[in-house]
């Protein structure tokens, strides 16, 4: 019997997120190791990136700390129990509030402005394409992660819609983690003068 693809078949809730999560995290770890080794082996050295202000650094660190809390509470719970509940959920929600406001600050301070390094007057960590790409990915996935949840908090979506958005939120959250790791990696490379 011929099976026609329906909207229901395209639903993200049909994917086994737990498996995707495990393979994504393993893949990410492998890529970071391989990438680090490859970059280190290339022996390419440039002038290390100029330091940002202490305030920018603090906001960036706080943002990354919330990402760690959010990822730890959500993915940790999913890997351990299949779903999030209890103290993990409380910590996730508390962290999510901070994440939303820190995201705005990080967007203002770290969004690639497209200026050439010489025009900007300093050695930008955005000079490497990988750094710029990961920054864009981080911002967009963060907006998606926060947006899906904020939208779900409004009396708009019904239960199937909420379940769909919860699934989207998980995938967006995974994208945040992947892009955050990529961005930190890129920042460290720039900072150490490897790129």
């Amino acid at each position, binding site marked *: 019997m011929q099976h026609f693809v329906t909207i229901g078949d395209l639903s993200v809730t049909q994917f086994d997120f737990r498996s995707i999560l495990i393979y994504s995290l393993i893949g990410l770890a492998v890529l970071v190791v391989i990438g680090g080794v490859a970059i280190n082996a290339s022996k390419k050295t440039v002038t290390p990136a100029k330091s940002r202000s202490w305030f920018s650094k603090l906001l960036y660190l706080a943002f990354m700390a919330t990402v760690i809390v959010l990822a730890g509470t959500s993915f940790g719970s999913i890997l351990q129990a*299949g779903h999030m509940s*209890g103290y993990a959920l409380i910590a996730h*929600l508390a962290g999510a509030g901070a994440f939303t406001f820190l995201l*705005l600050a990080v967007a203002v301070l770290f969004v*690639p402005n497209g200026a050439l390094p010489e025009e900007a007057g300093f050695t930008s960590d955005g000079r490497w394409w990988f750094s710029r790409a990961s920054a864009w990915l981080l911002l967009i996935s963060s*907006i998606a992660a926060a947006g899906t949840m904020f939208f779900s908090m409004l009396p*708009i979506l*019904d239960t199937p819609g909420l379940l769909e958005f919860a699934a989207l939120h998980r995938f967006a959250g995974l994208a945040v983690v992947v892009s955050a790791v990529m961005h930190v990696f890129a920042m460290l490379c720039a900072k150490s003068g490897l790129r």
Partner: protein
Amino acid sequence: MRESLVDLNKLFPSICLASGSLFFGFAQRSEAQNRYATSDNGSGYVHWIDLYDADNRKIDPAAESPKPYSPEKTCGRCHEYSTISHGWHFNATDADTKHGRPGQPWIWSDDLTGTHLPLSFRGWEGTHNPDDLGLSRWEVAAKLGGFMPGGGVGSLESLLPEDEGNEISKEQIAAAKESESEKETDEWEAEDKTHITGAVPVDCMMCHRNAGSGYSPFVWSEQIEDENFAYAPTAALGIATVSGNMTRLKGDFDPKLEENQAKLPKVAYEQGRFTSDGKVFFDLVRKPKNDSCYYCHTSRDANSVGRGLRWMHDDDVHVRAGIACADCHRNGLDHHTVRGYDGELHEAGGLVASLSCQGCHVGDDVGHGSATETGDPLAASGRLGAPMPEHKGLPPIHFEKMTCTACHSGSMPSSEVPREINSIAHRLGEHIKRTGMEAPAIFGTVNLPVDYSEYLGVETAGGDDAFHAHDKVYTPHRMMWPSYWGLIRSGKVEVLNPQQVYDIVRRPLKVRKGFEEDLGDVKLSLSDRKKILGEDRARAKEEDRTPEEQEKITAAEEEERKKQVNERMAAALEAIEEEFPNGTAVYISAGQGFVRKGEEEIEPADPELIGDAGKPYQWPLAHNVRPARQSLGANGCVECHSDESLFFQAEITPVGLLPGHEVEPIKLYDLQQADMPRLTLWNQLFAGRSQFKVAGLIALALTCLVVVSAMTWNFSRFFKR
């Protein structure tokens, strides 16, 4: 005139052809097959039928001593009596039945001994099996059968399980006589008058009567209490008057002796109800009317009783919409009535999945045994036009943590969990004055977490399933604290047979009207009043006393009451200990235990020693269902997610029957064993939630603006190059 069975069989083919499974829908889904022909017409079959007695002889209303009609022999001519009589309402004593989620217990109440003991043969945790207590099946049938449709515990196979053919033999009558004569000298023995009363017949009309047919279920109840088991269907149907009762017949009475026939109840048929050829019109319906269900399944807010406040209460929203009890609580020929909770094990397969709240209202891919899971079209949701709830903005985790009924059913939350009265426990149907505060005290609604894994029909693996098997799910309950007499032996409390207890304690307790009322009833003697008020004022009437004098009298009465309760209870406990010298007698009430302290005093027993013996029995409720706008949470998250939430913070005060003994209220979160530090922390997240949503959305919008601006600028720079 009596006709032979052969002749009778010639009279019935037309009836057999015309009735049958129309009377019992869904026979095709059940394994049970109807042997009889059916009419299959939606208009039903009009039952002008002959009546037959238990000996299968046609009833002649003009006969000298007509016998009561037998539903088994009358209805059973065209309907599968043996199949029907093993359905849900009749199978409590059947060990092979899957008894599922706990339900309402039978409550053995004895107002003279302060006993209110939840009983069940179904093994539900917190109930006591009458067999284990030493109560005979006959005693249970006689005491509690008034609010059952017959059969079950009172059936012959229950009363005489080892007897081949379930016939009452001469040997049993002889054994009963012997046991009765030995009673004086031998150990206490449970009463069993099966050989006199016979079994309790299944009365089809208890459920299948038409509204306004004249059938009186309360007459049935009275007849059962009078031990006129075989006469109950006839009297309740209103086609005859039954005079006399079997309670006065002793255990050694032989109903088969000719000289004893005059002592048996008499049946006088209303001859005008019979046609010239001896037929009677049975005003019945295939699908039971709500009124029939209500006779045994009414629960009412205790505060509305006797105050004319019933008009202020709405019915179940489904009933208001025109849906009958039996529309959801259906059964096939086998009469295995669907109970309707999610995951119920039932022979009807997929059909039952579509008759739970989720199965009917939510999509076909939700709930166990759903249409998607089973591929069974009968499991399709949306029956009877059930709307699909939107639950806009309600996080789906609520469906993992709570049943539908937790928000939609039972009483509205209040600071003190209200009391309820119900048909079976409080004999509703009897035409008397009530206060609503009659014992046993039943409370509702209390939301308690339930582990459904043992009731679910299928294994579930959690994950995105909306109903995790391994999580506890908040479910609304009714609950009662049992009160009974027991014996502390080998470090635990054994429940004593309440009938035996009555024999032992009735004298020392000196209770005539009611346990609580009589124990606490004190009147100061004139000499006592003289001591308190002096010679001159001792004879003053209550209304003539000064407030100070009345205060003194009240204090003295209180002291006297305390003394009286102590003395009588101590005497009763001592009497039990004399009967059972190897244990310590205890009286359990409101979760506490009381033991003897010397000759004239009682004291609370060590709670550790009492253990779970005083624990309340609780059973889930499903009705009345409230509409969406009156559900829990309709006014926002903080209805539950706040420190003042009545869901957790409401109080319940067990009702103790011992006069003068205070009982402390219990917070619901203690009963729920809720993690209050976590919930308190959780509540903090809901403080200022609306403002947070606004601020968060603004921050998110600004972030989007920054990102879009940066994108635009980057693109413009790219094209400039």
